[in-house]
């Protein structure tokens, strides 16, 4: 029993709990907080997996920007308790069980996948700085085109958001 395993289980429990909370909470803002919790836990898991850069990006972009946006919108629209309507029969009876079925399937298959046999060494063992440097190398050489493409995507997204949210005058 060592720290990494303890950390892993702690984060795993946190994230799962957060996900459950996301589902069960009736206030959208509670769901949002739950999701932020999940993201934090996942970020720590990234650290454990020796990907500090990704962890930081996860927090900055996801927790720091995207989720803030969500919270902001929730506040803006003053979204109250969600009403639990059940207009769709299949969603009412089939939805949740199907979801869990899918969960079991994927979990089972992933668990038995040969990739899983490897051992994830903790953060300490890997040279983060070097990894980050290599990551940037890949990002700006090997994956340059996708990178630029994403930048254009972002630009278009900004424009789209502006056009959508613009007040009709």
């Amino acid at each position, binding site marked *: 029993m060592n720290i990494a395993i303890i950390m892993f289980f702690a984060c795993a429990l946190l994230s799962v709990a957060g996900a459950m909370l996301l589902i069960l909470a009736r206030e959208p803002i509670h769901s949002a907080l739950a999701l932020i919790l999940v993201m934090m836990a996942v970020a720590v898991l990234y650290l454990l997996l020796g990907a500090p850069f990704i962890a930081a990006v996860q927090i900055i972009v996801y927790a720091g920007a995207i989720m803030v946006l969500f919270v902001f919108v929730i506040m803006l629209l003053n979204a109250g308790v969600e009403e639990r309507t059940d*207009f*769709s*029969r*299949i*969603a009412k009876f*089939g*939805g949740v069980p*199907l*979801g869990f*079925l*899918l969960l079991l*399937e*994927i979990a*089972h*298959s*992933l668990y*038995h*996948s*040969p990739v899983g046999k490897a051992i994830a060494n903790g953060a300490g063992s890997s040279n983060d700085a070097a990894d980050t440097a290599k990551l940037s190398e890949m990002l700006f050489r090997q994956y340059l085109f996708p990178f630029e493409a994403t930048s254009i995507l972002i630009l278009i997204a900004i424009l789209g958001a502006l056009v959508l949210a613009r007040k009709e005058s």
Partner: protein
Amino acid sequence: MPLLNHLWIVLALPLAGAAINGLFGKRWAQSAVNSVAVGSVVLSFLAAAETVREFCHLAANQIPFIGNYFTWMVGGEATPHPFRVDFALQVDQLTVVMLLVVTFVGMLIHIYSTGYMAQEGGYYRFFSYLNLFMFFMLTLVMAANLIVMFVGWEGVGLCSYLLIGFWFLKKSAADAGKKAFIVTRIGDFGFTVGILLVFATFGTVAFSEIFSQVAEKPVNILTTICLLLFAGAIGKSAQLPLYVWLPDAMEGPTPVSALIHAATMVTAGVYMVARMSPLFSRAPIAMLVVAIVGAVTAFYSATIGLVQTDIKKVLAYSTVSQLGYMFLACGVGAYTAGIFHLMTHAFFKGLLFLAAGSVIHAMGGEQDMTKMGGLREKIPATYWTMFIATLAIAGIPGFAGFFSKDAILEAAKDGPYANLWLWLLGVVGAGLTSFYMFRLVFLTFFGKPRYDEHKVHVHESPKKMTIPLMVLAFLSIFGGWFAAPKLVGGIDYFEKFLAPVFSASAPTSDAITAAATDTTASPAMDLLHALTGWPVIVGILGLLVAWWFYVKSPDIPKRMAQSVRGLYTLLFNKYYVDEIYAALIVRPLLWISTNVLWHVVDEGLVDGTVNATATIARDSGGQARKIQSGNTRSYAAWVILGAVGFTALLFGLLGVAN
């Protein structure tokens, strides 16, 4: 040979004119439209002339000169006789004649039209159609194979339809257009089948190849082919029994009547028969049929012409009967004479129509001769030109008509296929022709004015209308003099020129020349003999009778009409042919179409099927629609269901995981 190698230019010019006017003319001033339309035709005429000049320098073995531009369609290369059609044009003597006639007369009529149509709406449309017609007509006469010829054939039909129905707001005009198109269709059906049979028989549609192997084909097949083709000619050239469309076609503008329904298009049938003469010459029965149809038509429509009062109707029936003469000529093997008459007829009949148009123009749209009279002094140019044309058509010696008609009747009398009865019909017809033509002239120009002079202000037409009249008048006089030397024992230059074309039917031309030359008498005797021939006599007779009836004592016609009322009404109503057709063909057809095809087949079968399909689609869609509830959650549920299934498939059955 700059132009001979680019025959297509002759066609392309009018087509370009049509395209330009049709596309852009709407917004243009009349002058612009004129310059395009007339310009293109004039250029086309010049090109044609140049072509002919170059043609005359060709050696005999180069004739017919064929310009092959591109392969239009090819089918069944595998078979021994692949169906292969080239867009090919050809020039031989026959083509040359037609080419000159069409482009020249066409040019004159274009010029005339610029004056005649000046006040009409749709000016650009008219000239665009007219140019298009020129294009198709030239295609027809220059075609090197039956298919291209057929294109021109149908194209001129189309243009005739468009131009007859030019004033499409007038119901009678629109109907006339349709009538012309449909009636001609009947003949064209035969023509099409004939072309197919030609291909089936000869394995090709190119004239030269057909003629080269005409000899070894059985006669009865050739006869069938010829009869089928002749059916097409009947339709196009308004012979019995399909002539009914031509009189109605007078609904169109007069220049159109002149160009299409007198000078060029209606003669296409004759041209086609002449073009296929090698086949016809091998099929005596077909020849006989052609001759009979021609002669009977000539006589028959002449009789109708006797009593018509509409100036253009008279000319229409006379056209029919003149076409009859041409077919008679072909039928008796005198193709040259037929083509000769075709040419002269183009001159004087075109002139007649244009002059009639000028008269109508002067009378402010009045077409009924009984409401005219005494126009002689008021519109002298029109009067004189028209009088010349009348002399020409009446076959008065010295005028163009005389030579050609004389040649025809002579061939009918003592050609190789000579037939007395046909000759008789021809002669009587000639007399009648002379009579009703002079009747027309006298009614129109002589006697007391029968119109209200305060209402109608008769005025001579503008220069651009009268000048073409004069040119044509000149031709109506001298256009036939190619044949003049023959009368004095010389040779007929026209015939000599055309001889190579009809060499396939050599015996004919030989016979004619023989008939012309073996008269042992002296040239003077020949001349006398020709001048005192029956045609001349009856022609002058007709003149005199007409003068007596309509100038000397104008009350005789009425009394005659009283005495032989039955015959008169019969003629006046054109033998009730339209009514008979209506009763025998049109009404049953309508009845069947309405009660069987429409109510049973269309509504029951077709609509039923369509509606059934629609209903099935709609109902199944209505069922499927229920899934598309628009509720995102159910969509999500469906997606998950699919994902579950797919993952199960992937990992479970295919065992991708391990």
